[in-house]
């Protein structure tokens, strides 16, 4: 294919041109990668800084949510306790679940991913450092919004699942539900940006020679997790937006009297909520699969089995959501199918467990603290998996559902499947952060306290639940057979908490008194241990060629000399830019040099603008909302507006090989990012479409009585969407042409076509009253969604045209045209599908 041939920019003869429009010529290689100090540290975009921030913030949220859990357990220690009143108790358990799921587990795994991916694949930074920093600030501000609800005495009290109608404005009149919806949706931006970043980083910035099959196993786990986040989070984001729109604007998405359906919320919530469990579990299992070989001293047994299991788990996890809804009155046929699908997860889980057991059998494992946590994980998680199969059996589920049995099950899965591996991982990778080892002696105490406390607290709950105790009750009467069991659970929770506190103590102790960690302190096989003990800011002086899945064990040249002397790619730093290697996603062969941004305030400012916008929405200060979003828009513009280095050929440091910077090629990391983004967008759109189809199916009466959209305009919109799609194809070709000016026509055409498409869709839907029925409201939501994407298309193509018009772009630098092509094609499809939906849906006028 000739298209794949990247267009290469000739270097200007002028000696002053360094090959980079944004280099810092005065600085040495080391200085270029230094993290800025003082208050400017906040402008750092390095993955090491951002990853650490995710981990520390996530752990603080873990302690907060753990404290809330202790309040819950203290309230339940005796029957009829008056320690907390019902309202406070409801707030406490709601926030416990919310913080643990959204502000601890996901950010924590993002922290590990952000920190570890570049080090393990041989990159100097994460592929989109500014996006990582931006995501972190969104998470931080979103978390602060959610937590601040305590200050306004409006902490969410509707459960972490926010079921409607309880969370609609009829039954929750204060702002508590809005704090939840706005804060959590904002924090989720971090999750979806992390998904894009993880996908592009793992696929596009690996060391030379690291093919897919040579990737550390954790990369497979994280890659699958990232795809799951990309598809799994959108249903919740859409659900939250619909619910907030109902609360704020009165649109009747879930209003039974107007054809809405409370079960629609449950479907959207669990379409997210179930994959979420695997999103939390998989990275933890990946960390186990990474640590285990180190302590056994042998490679992971059954790497291929594990990869296949993880991939199939990713797919399976999307077919199970309704097992959270077995008691809602679904037809027996659906119950059976979802039940069977749910139990099938036992197979990929079993494969992984036996891979781990077989790895253990390869040698005598060293019983260090991380290893103890791994064994604890196996014990607890297998029990949780078995009770998981039990609750997947529908008849049993009808007794166990919403009882303490499920509380026991989910904590066995999540604490066993995430918290124990995470503590093991913290012990294991701590030398990377502090340069010191944590105490083995105290670590054993931490483990046993946590293990005994956990089992005491949660094993009892199986029995409490089967004895009929429902979840989420602030008090219970004496004499129902729950008293002693609850007392034991509470004592167990205190012991568990003591273990966590001891860990915190040891953390602060070891920073001062811990022994210095040597190079590769555990004798691991993976690349992140190449430098002693804290890797330098740039991770690698030169990026080594990788020939093995266990490079530190199999490639003696890596460990037999000081790390800075190891040979590899990109040792020369002629352009004084932060840069790393870009590779072919499959083979790992060198493809391009990826230019990376230097420290910048833009992510913080942009996230702050969004936080202002979201926060002001809560306070109903709409002028401030406008200010906030204006700041964010300015931030995004500054973000994208920078001189292009794309296509310039530079030395790779690998023999005579010269590689282009930011290559114009569908395998570009930027193109992968757009594909990832469009995958998320398609999942968002599909969630909305699902909402419409669901209502159509379950409330046919309302579908018939809702007036149709105007067919003529909808038909024209369908036609224009085809034109936009064709322009997308043209833009893709244009990215590879030698002439710049004619491409402006395509850019302007895209802007015009997008505007026309949006206008026609509006003309079509404008006769339908959005307040008339839930069905009509979803029609408007589809329009609003597509209109948002079209606005971005217009903005983006105009920026592209402008940059060409002012001469900022040369032939071979038209990567943006390749990117917008993919974007425009997907948006055209979404617009066309919306137009088709307008043509097909709706009853008699």
């Amino acid at each position, binding site marked *: 294919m000739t298209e794949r041939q990247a267009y290469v920019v000739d270097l200007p003869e002028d000696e002053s041109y360094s090959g980079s429009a944004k280099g810092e010529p005065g600085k040495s290689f080391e200085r270029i990668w230094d993290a800025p100090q003082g208050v400017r540290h906040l402008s750092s975009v390095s993955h090491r800084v951002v990853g650490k921030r995710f981990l520390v913030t996530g752990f603080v949220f873990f302690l907060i949510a753990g404290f809330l859990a202790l309040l819950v357990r203290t309230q339940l220690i005796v029957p009829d306790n008056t320690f907390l009143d019902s309202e406070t108790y409801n707030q406490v358990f709601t926030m416990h679940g919310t913080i643990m799921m959204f502000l601890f587990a996901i950010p924590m795994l993002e922290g590990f991913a952000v920190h570890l991916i570049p080090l393990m694949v041989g990159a100097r930074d994460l592929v989109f450092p500014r996006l990582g920093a931006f995501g972190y600030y969104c998470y931080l501000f979103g978390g602060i919004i959610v937590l601040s609800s305590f200050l306004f005495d409006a902490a969410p009290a509707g459960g972490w699942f926010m*079921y409607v*109608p309880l969370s609609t404005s009829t039954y929750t009149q204060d702002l508590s539900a809005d704090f939840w919806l706005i804060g959590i949706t904002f924090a989720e931006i971090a999750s979806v940006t992390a998904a894009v970043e993880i996908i592009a980083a793992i696929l596009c910035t690996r060391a030379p020679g690291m093919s897919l099959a040579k990737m550390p196993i954790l990369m497979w786990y994280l890659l699958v997790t990232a795809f799951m986040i990309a598809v799994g989070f959108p249903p919740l984001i859409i659900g939250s937006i619909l619910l907030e729109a109902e609360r704020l604007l009165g649109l009747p998405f879930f209003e039974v009297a107007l054809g809405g359906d409370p079960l629609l919320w449950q479907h959207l919530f669990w379409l997210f909520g179930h994959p979420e469990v695997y999103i939390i579990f998989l990275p933890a299992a990946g960390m186990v699969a990474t640590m285990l070989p180190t302590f056994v001293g042998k490679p992971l047994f059954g790497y291929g089995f594990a990869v296949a299991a993880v991939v199939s788990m990713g797919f399976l996890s999307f077919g199970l959501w309704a097992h959270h809804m077995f008691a809602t*009155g679904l037809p027996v046929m659906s119950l059976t199918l979802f039940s*069977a699908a749910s139990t099938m997860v036992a*197979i990929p889980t079993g494969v992984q467990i036996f891979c781990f*057991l077989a790895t253990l*059998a390869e040698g005598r494992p060293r019983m260090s603290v991380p290893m103890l946590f791994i064994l604890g994980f196996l014990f607890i998680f297998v029990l949780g998996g078995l009770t998981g199969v039990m609750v997947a059996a529908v008849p049993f589920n009808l007794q166990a559902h919403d009882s303490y049995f499920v509380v026991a099950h989910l904590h066995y899965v999540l604490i066993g499947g995430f918290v124990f591996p995470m503590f093991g991982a913290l012990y294991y990778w701590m030398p990377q952060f502090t340069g010191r080892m944590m105490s083995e002696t105290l670590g054993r105490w931490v483990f046993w306290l946590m293990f005994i406390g956990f089992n005491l607290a949660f094993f009892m709950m199986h029995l409490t639940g089967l*004895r*009929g105790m*429902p979840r989420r009750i602030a008090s219970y009467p004496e004499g129902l057979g729950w008293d002693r069991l609850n007392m034991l659970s509470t004592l167990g929770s205190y012991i568990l908490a003591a273990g966590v506190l001891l860990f915190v103590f040891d953390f602060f102790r070891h920073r001062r008194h811990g022994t210095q960690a040597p190079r590769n302190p555990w004798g691991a096989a993976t690349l992140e241990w190449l430098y002693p003990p804290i890797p330098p800011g740039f991770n690698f002086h030169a990026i080594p060629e990788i020939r093995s899945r266990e490079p530190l064990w199999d490639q003696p040249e890596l460990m037999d000399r000081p790390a800075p002397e190891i040979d590899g790619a990109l040792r020369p730093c002629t352009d004084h830019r932060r840069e790393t290697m870009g590779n072919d996603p499959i083979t790992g062969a060198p493809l391009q040099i990826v230019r990376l941004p230097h420290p910048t305030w833009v992510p913080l400012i942009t996230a702050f603008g969004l936080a202002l916008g979201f926060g002001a929405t809560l306070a109903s200060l709409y002028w401030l909302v406008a200010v906030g979003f204006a700041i964010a828009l300015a931030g995004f513009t500054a973000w994208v507006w920078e001189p292009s280095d794309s296509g310039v050929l530079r030395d790779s440091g690998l023999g005579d090989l010269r590689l282009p910077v930011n290559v114009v090629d569908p395998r570009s990391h930027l193109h992968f990012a757009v594909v990832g983004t469009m995958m998320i967008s398609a999942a968002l759109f599909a969630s909305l479409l699902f909402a419409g189809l669901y209502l159509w199916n379950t409330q046919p009466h309302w579908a018939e009585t809702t007036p149709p959209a105007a067919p003529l305009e909808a038909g024209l919109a369908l036609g224009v969407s085809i034109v936009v799609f064709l322009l997308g194809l043209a833009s893709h070709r244009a990215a590879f042409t030698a002439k710049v000016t004619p491409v402006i026509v395509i850019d302007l055409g895209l802007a015009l076509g997008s505007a026309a498409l949006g206008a026609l869709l509006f003309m079509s839907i404008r006769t339908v009253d959005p307040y008339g029925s839930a069905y009509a409201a979803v029609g408007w939501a589809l329009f609003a969604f597509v209109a948002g994407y079209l606005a971005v298309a217009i903005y983006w193509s105009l920026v592209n045209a402008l940059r060409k018009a002012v001469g900022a772009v040369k032939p071979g630098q038209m990567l943006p045209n390749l990117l917008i092509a993919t974007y425009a094609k997907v948006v055209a499809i979404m617009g066309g599908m919306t137009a088709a939906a307008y043509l097909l849906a709706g009853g008699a006028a």
Partner: protein
Amino acid sequence: MSGTSQSALGEFGVQSALAPEGAGATAINGLTIGMTIAFGVIFVLLVLFAWAVLAGRLAPRRWWIWAGGIALPLVSVLALVVVSTGILQKITREEPDALVIEVTGKQFWWDVLYDPEGWALRDANEIVIPKGRPVTFRLKSDNVIHSFWVPKLTGKMDMIPGRVNTLPVLATETGRFRGQCAEFCGLSHPKMAFEVVVLEPAEFDAWMQRNSGEARDAARSELLRGRDVFVEAGCPACHTIRGVADGGTLGPDLTRVGGRGSLGAGMWRMNQGTLAGWIADPSAMKPGAEMPSYNHLPGPDLRALSAYLASLK
């Protein structure tokens, strides 16, 4: 606030799924015991296997993954799906001649309508059913989502606005079984319980006969005074006492309130004292209850009213 002793409900019988007294709960309990034994054995075998591995007694083999990771789970879950589908069919089967009882979840109590197409007998918070005769609960809500759960009889079923779910029940023993709302429904979700009373079929028929008429007459002057207070204080705006005041549907039907085993939806023992406490300040006993406080009633009126209500059996 009521004391601990008043909420000691042990004498009403527990609500344990492990002590089934209904056909559904018995079938599910069999499944529970079977799965617990099977998975317990699997777990112990896995622990022993891991023990042997850690002791270095076994060399890794690829067939472990095939046998333990694929074959074992596949066989066990297939067996489980077959068995549990059979039980599911059994416990969800509705008998065409079953007694229909419509239960509507409220915040935070239960409105009960026996045989809506026939007798249409309205009651609240205590459900009387015959032993050995199939009953179909028709479950609704006109507010938030609740879930109807009597663990000793069968599994739970949600009550969802805009939908009608059905739950077949066959009680196999007489007695008093506690049930509780199992879907978080707001402030006083923990105080939304109820009782099911299972009677011998003949007793049940007699009970239906006895209760389908008007409320018991007020026989003494204090009770007559109580009846007048009921009307004068405006109670009929929300409550019905058949033969005294009809039409109030916002609150529980009080025609036989004194005959119920408990007050406040399965929370406190029913007697004049708890009734008076409730009338004086419902939201102290049950936060978020919609009923306003009647602590402005003069002491004698409150006593008369509570005595009258307690006499309605």
